[in-house]
């Protein structure tokens, strides 16, 4: 793959509710911050990809709400529906194709204006599954039980993910839920879908993120602090929950394998210093980092209980606080990318991972992570 880079990032704070902001207001804030971060103007943006979801926005053609605020009016523009990591992938392809030198990618949603249960229930097949009342939460509970049964991961170990990530968020001024909590706090919080307690679950959030991708030539001329794309791949599992082994994530294993191969990474545990993964639920962080090969042959829950994956560890996982500390869907994966960029630039302040040179960002689409996108980013070309 040819060299490409991320030359700008911008995001809104993640909040439970942004009653003062429309979708366009949030997009404008994130986009102008990304442009300022890159030190460029709209004239330097060759084309635009927005990322949104009609269900979450309660609007058909949800991209229409943000195209002007993204400066797309006189440019080529398109819209990906799904997680921001997928939007960024299409944005990257438009550069790799040779058609454009830079792509502005945005992703937004306002969970506060949505009913998560109804919206995620609508992802189930209307003829076969939907009437069962499954949604993202109850399906994740099934997955959690299957994963814990397969691996022997305990509720205490899963709870440690929440303890770690909410703790990390105390250093991140963009995070919604910085908290100092204990395993006991997690396990005594309300049981929302067995075995998931309230504090095992990410919150409902509003937010928007924007990043600017550039070709090598443009990154060299206008990029002040480029972070390089080393590899990226995505893959979808089967659809029906009954057709999948929910306790494993073959699509993530495949996406990570491809992305590492592009990046020339043979041993991810040794070569990656920071991972921002899609921890919509505590146990999922453990499941995803195992599938991404970040635990070798060990069990993620055991390693975490042994004190691994903190900001000071040789592999930090979700040093920003992750989605457990703020989860604007659609924007979530793009925020993971922006956070890895911060780490690789050495600009993460109190949650900076020492010596971060190679990082991985992860986004998902669908129920229980049916489809995964993995980005490997590096500080060196």
């Amino acid at each position, binding site marked *: *793959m*040819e060299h490409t880079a991320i030359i700008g990032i911008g995001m809104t704070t993640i909040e439970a509710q942004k009653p003062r902001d429309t979708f*366009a207001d949030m997009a404008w804030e994130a986009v102008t911050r990304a442009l300022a971060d890159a030190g460029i103007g709209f004239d330097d943006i060759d084309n635009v990809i927005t990322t949104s*979801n*009609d*269900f979450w926005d*309660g609007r*058909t*053609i949800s*991209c*229409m*709400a*943000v*195209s*002007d*605020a993204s400066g797309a*009016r*006189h*440019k*080529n*523009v*398109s*819209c*990906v*529906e*799904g997680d921001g990591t*997928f939007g960024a*992938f*299409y944005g*990257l*392809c*438009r*550069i*790799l*194709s*040779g*058609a454009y030198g830079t792509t502005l990618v945005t992703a937004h949603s306002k969970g506060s204006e949505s009913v998560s249960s109804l*919206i*995620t229930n*609508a*992802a189930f*097949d*209307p*003829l076969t599954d939907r009437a069962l009342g499954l949604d993202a939460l109850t399906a994740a509970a099934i997955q959690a039980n299957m994963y814990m049964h397969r691996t022997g991961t305990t509720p205490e170990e899963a709870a440690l993910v929440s303890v770690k990530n909410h703790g990390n968020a105390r250093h991140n001024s963009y995070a919604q839920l910085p908290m100092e909590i204990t395993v006991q706090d997690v396990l005594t919080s309300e049981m929302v879908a067995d075995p998931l307690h309230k504090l095992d679950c990410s919150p409902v959030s509003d937010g928007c993120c924007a990043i600017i991708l550039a070709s090598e030539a443009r990154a060299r001329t206008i990029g002040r602090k480029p972070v390089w794309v080393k590899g990226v*791949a*995505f*893959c*979808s*599992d*089967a*659809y*029906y929950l009954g057709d999948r082994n929910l306790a494993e994530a*073959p*699509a993530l294993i*495949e996406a990570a394998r491809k992305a590492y191969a592009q990046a020339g990474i043979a041993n991810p545990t040794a070569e990656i210093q920071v991972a921002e993964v899609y921890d919509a639920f505590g146990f999922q962080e453990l499941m995803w980092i195992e599938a991404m090969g970040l635990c070798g042959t060990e069990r993620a829950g055991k390693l975490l209980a042994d004190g691994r994956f903190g900001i000071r560890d040789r592999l930090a996982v979700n040093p920003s606080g992750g989605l457990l500390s703020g989860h604007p869907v659609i924007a979530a994966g793009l925020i993971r990318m922006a956070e890895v960029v911060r780490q690789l630039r050495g600009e993460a302040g109190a949650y900076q991972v020492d010596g971060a040179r190679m990082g991985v960002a992860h986004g998902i*689409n*669908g*129920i229980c992570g*049916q*489809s995964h996108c993995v980005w490997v980013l590096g500080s060196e070309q």
Partner: protein
Amino acid sequence: MGKRRVAIVGTGQTLHRSHRPDVNGQELIHEAVRIALADAGLTIADIDAVVIGNMDHFEGINAVDCWSVDGTGGTMKPVIKLTTGGTTGSTLAIGGVHLVASGMFDRVLIVGWEKNSESDTTGAITTAFDPVWDRLVFAGAISGLAAEAQAYMARYGATDRDAARVAVRDRRHACNNPHAQLRKPITIEDVLASPMLADPIHLLDVCPRTDGACAVIMACEGVAEKLTPVPDWIWATANRHTYTYLGDVNWGELDSMSEAAQELFAKAGIREPRKEIDVIELYQPYSFAGIIWIEDMGLVERGKGAEYIWSGATDMGGELPINPSGGVIACNPIGATGLIRCAEAALQIMGKAEARQVPDAKIAVSTGFGGCMWTDMLLHGRKKPDF
């Protein structure tokens, strides 16, 4: 435009009907995919990635990229969803071009689909517009089109009879297309006597609602030539989604088309589009657009669209046939509609358009329309692009 040249090597369309109760969405998608794979001489194992799109609120299914894998064959493959409203189909085609041109994938399957029979089309489209400024007073598909037609008529004196001539053309062309939903010719009097929906638009001026899917397979140079003797090479793409608010629109002209067309033709080195282009598949959701938008595309001078239509130049056998397939007025599974324009243009270039073939078509244009008066465009050629 690209680092790698890209061509269409196969297309597939379902039986398009107002209702397809015999299939669910996945089965409808599968029908188009199976035909496209056979057309390209490929199996699903040969496909490196899937691009899919529709309009969520028409079927009420969230995360269609994930839900549809049993229809697309996308299980354990990269699957991505693009959606931009009416332009979804053309957006998908442009997406496929860039995915292949990027070098990341050699063979990409592109699928657009809609089961409009399951939807409240206008109800869903209404929600596209800003809830404070536009939605209560000026929403749905037809109100904006009526405003455009009125503005154009006021400026240039065109009539609903002029527009009816366009509807008559497309419905006559549709009789040659086995995939078209409405294959019955109509007269100008039929159009003018049909119910008035939104002045000056009559029922027979506008597109129907359709269940259908379209699949297109694109491949990179080196692969494409081995799959088909005459690949449809994509020379250029361009689009503009100019407006967010209906109140901002420059009614009576399609700004997005003017800008996109200029970029498209400049990229492909087209100087005299009317002479150099052999056939156009225009995403023309209502008849007046057949007059107005050919001006925006730069084919004729401002105000001369109707005269050009009456001359017969855009009929089959004319100087520049438009919509040999019968176009959107004869068939409109919305998420597929723009991709059908692309597939029909490909069939023309590949010489596979059968009864609707424009003889010796070498350069074709396909377009998409949607959103807030938006335009997508692709330029197709029989010759390999020389860049």
